[in-house]
């Protein structure tokens, strides 16, 4: 072996094993270039966040949605009292509010966690 071509052939034998961030770098590029893989990343982010949102709705909106029917089917619920306060007043006038804030707070933490996870996969800023 004498000149250039053979030398070049030697120089591309393989990627150095130490260079790790290749996969994360690629993920961002997959999204930018709108490849099928990039779409998979995006769809999984959307699904995760939407599933979280729907879980929150199931937790708060569903019980509230059942309430009027429950009052209609079992009128006795409307006459129960907790201390001096009737149950419907307690639920709709007070309990709803701290409960909503609590659920909202849990949602916020989980949504941010999902985003950090996505950031970890898609990689450090290039």
């Amino acid at each position, binding site marked *: 072996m004498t000149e250039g071509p053979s030398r070049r052939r030697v120089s591309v034998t393989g990627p150095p094993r130490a260079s790790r961030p290749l996969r994360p770098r690629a993920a961002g590029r997959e999204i930018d270039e709108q490849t099928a893989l990039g779409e998979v990343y995006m769809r999984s982010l959307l699904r995760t966040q939407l599933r979280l949102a729907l879980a929150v709705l199931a937790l708060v909106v569903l019980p509230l949605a059942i309430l009027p029917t429950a009052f209609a089917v079992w009128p006795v619920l409307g006459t129960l009292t907790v201390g001096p306060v009737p149950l*419907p007043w307690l639920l709709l006038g007070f309990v709803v509010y701290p409960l909503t804030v609590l659920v909202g707070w849990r949602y916020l933490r989980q949504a941010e966690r999902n985003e950090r996870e996505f950031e970890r996969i898609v990689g450090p800023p290039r």
Partner: protein
Amino acid sequence: MTSGSGLALLAIVLTVAAALLIGAYGTRVSRTTSDFYVASRSVTPWMNASAIGGEYLSAASFLGVAGLVMAYGVDMLWFPVGYTIGYLLLLVLVAAPLRRSGAYTLPDFAEGRLESRGVRRVATAFVVLIGWLYLVPQMQGAGLTLRTVLGVPTWVGVVAVGAVVLVAVAGGGMRSITLVQAFQYWLKLFAITLPVFFVLASWQADGAPEVLADSPPVFAERTSVSVGSDVVLRVEQAVTVRADGVVDGREVTGTLRLPTGRHEVAAGTELVFPADAPVPHAEPLPALTGQAWGQPLGGGLDQPLYRTYALMLALFFGTMGLPHVLVRFYTNPDGRAARRTTLTVLALVGIFYLAPPVYAALGRVYSPELLVTGRTDAVVLTLPGAMVGGGGGLVLGAVVAAGAFAAFLSTSSGLVISVAGVLSQDVVGRRMRSPVAAFRVATTLAVAVPMVLTLAGQSLPVASMVGLAFAVAASSFCPLLLLGIWWPRLTAPGAVAGLLVGGGLAMLAVLVTLLAGPVPGWAGALLAQPAAWTMPSAVLVMVVGSLMTSRQVPDGVTRIMVRLHTPESLDLDRGANLTRGGQWP
């Protein structure tokens, strides 16, 4: 003028002056082009949340909720619950993506997301319609407040709020308004909460009379009622009153026996009821025993279960579609801050809503004359004076009057800015050369139309009016936002069709309700609470329409989804902001 009304006038003037002064001070701090419209983007979530709360808590929250609960009972607590849950839905479904979209306004979002000018035009029309619909009850509330505390005719308050908002908005845009709105939130919270402690203490000192008694409300003492506008009274038990004015078409001065039945009482009439007489109610308010009033579905309206569900749907899903709510999100630095801000708003709004039920309940015992005049919306204003005697009562009365005025000012200016913004950009701006002049003309239009509607139109309870605006928003912008953010296959023709069908039907129901007055039976319930059928139609039409035109899915949708959903810290290609930057005056 009595010393009480003088004090209230002073408090109102101070509120207006403080708002204008803080606005003027802020003007010097921030003066770039985008500041004119969306204030600075470096506002903390805490400050921003106060501002959103300040703008969101309108006449409907400050006066209307207590008024409706007092008249119709516990079912009406769904109003404040709905206003709050609306923010939870906004938090989990819309807040962060909307901020990340970079849109200033709903038409911006619609056009940018769907790459279509046609959607923009329809969205513009709905921003203006919803804005006007929401402004009418604010002005109505202002008229009622000045009338209640100062005794001036209703139009004075309407014109006063209109003029102040016009001057403030045309002069300063949204510069520094964040600070003003934040101040107004704390003022409102203080104004509605402080009297609660005093009226509760006074109720205890009075031996805590039963609110949920098994009988209709009675006058605790000899009570003089001046009837402000023509009413029809339903007398359930014959009563002898002293009357001065026109009753059943006849001039009366002196003692008058009112037998059981309906009686027409003309505006300007003064009636004096004896102690312990049952309270005759103005139509269409139902005469409820304390017990029925305190129980769900006992409010005396047709189809209460349907009405409750339709109202829930309108309020839960309408909040995200209100034009003045979206603009505020742009003042967050990024999507995460938008979420944190929304969570704080949820807490601030929730704290506020603990107060109105107290006014409603005690109002039935201590301000029953409002059931005679039909103006239960005034209970927040009258109760402190009625329950706390002497100077303390006067001061508390002035405090609530100031808080109520802050409510009209803040919500109205937010709405006027949103309406004027889209009007100047899409309607007036095309015909005028100077953008600042266009914004001023648009502001005048944005204020004048609802002012005329308020003075000419039928008066519904304030919170019911606002509920109609929510129903239209839930049937138009809510599906557009939800599908636009979470469903890449939405197309422009589908969106336009959905907006026109859902929003159009809701608007039609609103017009019939406003023009024809209360309709009995199922038809009345469907028209008064349209969201339960108009919102699903909007979603259905949008989805089916988009599937039928699936070739017209915008080319850039993948990039836009990246923009809407990925954290800003990631270095991704997310295309341009969904806004036409630099076009603001």
